[in-house]
């Protein structure tokens, strides 16, 4: 017998085309999200606010301060005469880092007696402080090495072997270590998941609230025909969203697209079915539209952001949290997105996450169909 899926899909498409709220949720929301998150979420730290108390006031101390001010990581916001004034600047937030150069700094260095420079960090933002400490160490190390080289040169000794081991670090796939390069592919997955689930979350429960479901379930239409038919137009929208969001990532945030577009779209399709099915499950079990919306936000937004490896690597989570992440579909698509966009991974490397996504889609869609009751 012929299926009724096309009839349901066609009707659903007509609803979407007549409803500007659905349309804007379908297209404006994802674009807004990628732009907002793309700009807002960055782990790269630039222009840290630096306050300096230069009690020495010599050429050597000024040169040290200059090394900081010249780097793009620090911005000199205050210069005070005494070290006692620095804590106040950290307290009121004027500075994130404070550096105290003691009196006789130049003199001690000149006589090779060594000296101490105190650097204070605002640890209330521990992530920033950790990264800043790394930058500070690097700048001091460079200063120390060049001092040793000067000394050797003055003694007529060769300085080419200083430092004895020179590490040459090369970062692959994201040479600048720009966090947007890893954030944006993850964002594509997060946005698709949230938008897909939101889109379908209202479809069934809205018909229940409006009363049109009563007419529909009095017909011989089968449950799977209703749900799959309703899903199809949204699948098209979810895929368009995926393309739009990825394109914005490439154009606006300079994210590379190294891998296969066909492979990307094929896996996105599988992922979209999983996301749309979550929305359908919510729509089928919820008694009203508001509840369906809340179920979807709770089950997709937070897990996709926090438990997917999007912001925090799964490997660094406690083991029991890692176990939970297996149940977060976004986790697999983030792996796939990063693999295709940044590394140009071939299909064979993406079989495992894709199989997981197929499993999720099948289980969730089956759940929606079985939980949907053709009764009032």
């Amino acid at each position, binding site marked *: *017998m*012929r299926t*009724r899926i*096309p*009839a*349901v899909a*066609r*009707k659903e498409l*007509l*609803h979407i085309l*007549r*409803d500007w709220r659905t349309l804007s949720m379908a297209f404006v929301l994802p674009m807004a999200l990628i732009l907002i998150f793309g700009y807002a979420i960055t782990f790269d730290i630039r222009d840290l606010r630096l306050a300096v108390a230069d009690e020495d006031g010599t050429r050597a101390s000024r040169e040290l301060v200059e090394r900081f001010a010249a780097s793009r990581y620090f911005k000199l916001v205050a210069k005070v005469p005494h070290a006692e004034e620095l804590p106040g600047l950290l307290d009121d937030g004027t500075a994130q880092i404070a550096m105290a150069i003691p009196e006789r700094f130049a003199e001690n260095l000149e006589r090779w007696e060594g000296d101490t420079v105190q650097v204070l960090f605002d640890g209330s933002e521990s992530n920033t402080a950790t990264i800043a400490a790394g930058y500070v160490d690097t700048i001091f190390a460079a200063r120390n090495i060049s001092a040793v080289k000067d000394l050797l040169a003055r003694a007529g000794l060769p300085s080419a072997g200083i430092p004895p081991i020179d590490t040459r670090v090369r970062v692959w796939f994201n040479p600048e270590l720009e966090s947007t390069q890893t954030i944006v592919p993850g964002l594509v997955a997060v946005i698709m998941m949230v938008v897909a689930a939101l889109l379908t979350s209202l479809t069934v429960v809205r018909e229940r609230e*409006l*009363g*049109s*479901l*009563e*007419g*529909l*379930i*009095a*017909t*011989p*239409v089968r449950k799977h025909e209703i749900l799959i038919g309703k899903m199809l137009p949204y699948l098209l929208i979810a895929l368009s969203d995926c393309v739009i969001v990825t394109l914005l990532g490439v154009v606006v945030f300079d994210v590379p697209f190294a891998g296969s577009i066909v492979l990307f779209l094929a896996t996105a399709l599988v992922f979209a079915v999983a996301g749309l099915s979550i929305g359908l499950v919510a729509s089928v079990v919820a008694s009203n539209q508001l509840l369906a919306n809340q179920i979807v936000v709770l089950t997709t937004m937070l897990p996709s952001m926090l438990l997917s490896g999007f912001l925090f690597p799964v490997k660094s989570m406690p083991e029991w949290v890692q176990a939970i992440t297996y149940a977060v579909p976004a986790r697999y698509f983030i792996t796939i997105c990063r693999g295709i966009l940044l590394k140009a991974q071939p299909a064979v490397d993406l079989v495992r996450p894709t199989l997981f996504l197929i499993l999720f889609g099948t289980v969730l869609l089956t759940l929606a169909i079985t939980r949907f009751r*053709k*009764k*009032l």
Partner: protein
Amino acid sequence: MIAVKAEGLVKRFGPFTAVDHVSFEVAQGSIFGFLGPNGAGKTTTIRMLCGLLAPTEGRATVVGFDLAREADRIKENIGYMSQKFSLYADLTVKQNLEFYAGIYRIPLRKRAGRIDLALRIAGLRGLEHRLTATLAGGIKQRLALGAAILHEPRLIFLDEPTAGVDPASRRDFWDLIAELRSQGATVFVTTHYMDEAEHCDRLILIYSGRKIAEASPRELVTNVLEGSMFEVTGPPPAEVVRSLQGKPFVKNAQIFGSVARVLTEDGPESAGRLEQNLSETGLPEARVRPVRPRLEDAFIHLIEREDALIADSGGRTR
């Protein structure tokens, strides 16, 4: 041929019994009226018969199929028009019909013809591309009926099809129902408008979940109302009713607009007795004339009798 056979249908919602052991048979090709005030259990019964609600107890066969086991076979052969408009307000008239044509899997080559027929029967030609939300109430109801008969069902359930519709449209709608019957369909219709009962071949009166009468409209009037019906004009009807209440020969007295309608035990000759009686109780200007009893009188009488029974038993446990 029996279109619907219901045996002891019960539907409980928690402690509330909406339908209480209701049984009946609907003959193929008839207009079957399901009457009762709002909240009597009409919609619940119709929803059970359409497979939208599972009965708590009892069984039924609809168009020859068992309700509990063959709900989908039933759904293929019935048309259902719900009390609340259940088509899509944001689709046009034609899009709604096309959707239901697809749902009923009407073959493509027949589809245009069927939709056109439904448009003609429902009087919607020329409105095909109107947005359903912009249609008036009566036209919406005709569209709902058009959608329910697209697949030429043998049995059509209409739940309060004329509720909230103006009198002229109501009359048109009943003409439509009669036309469907003449084409061989069985029509199962609920209404709380007593005057509409005349259009039915057979009636059931349902009250607080129980069947309290079943008959043809003619039988109801003659069998239920033994005695004679009179209309009393002149004094305010409330005073007439008050002065006649408790009189042994008066079976029932009702205010009906600006007049009182009185049912007595004896024949039409008791008009004089009634007039004399009213005169003695201080209403000499009262004029009494015999009238033909109407269905509505029968229903009111039945419902009052049922209320009295419930009151006598100290309220039925339900």
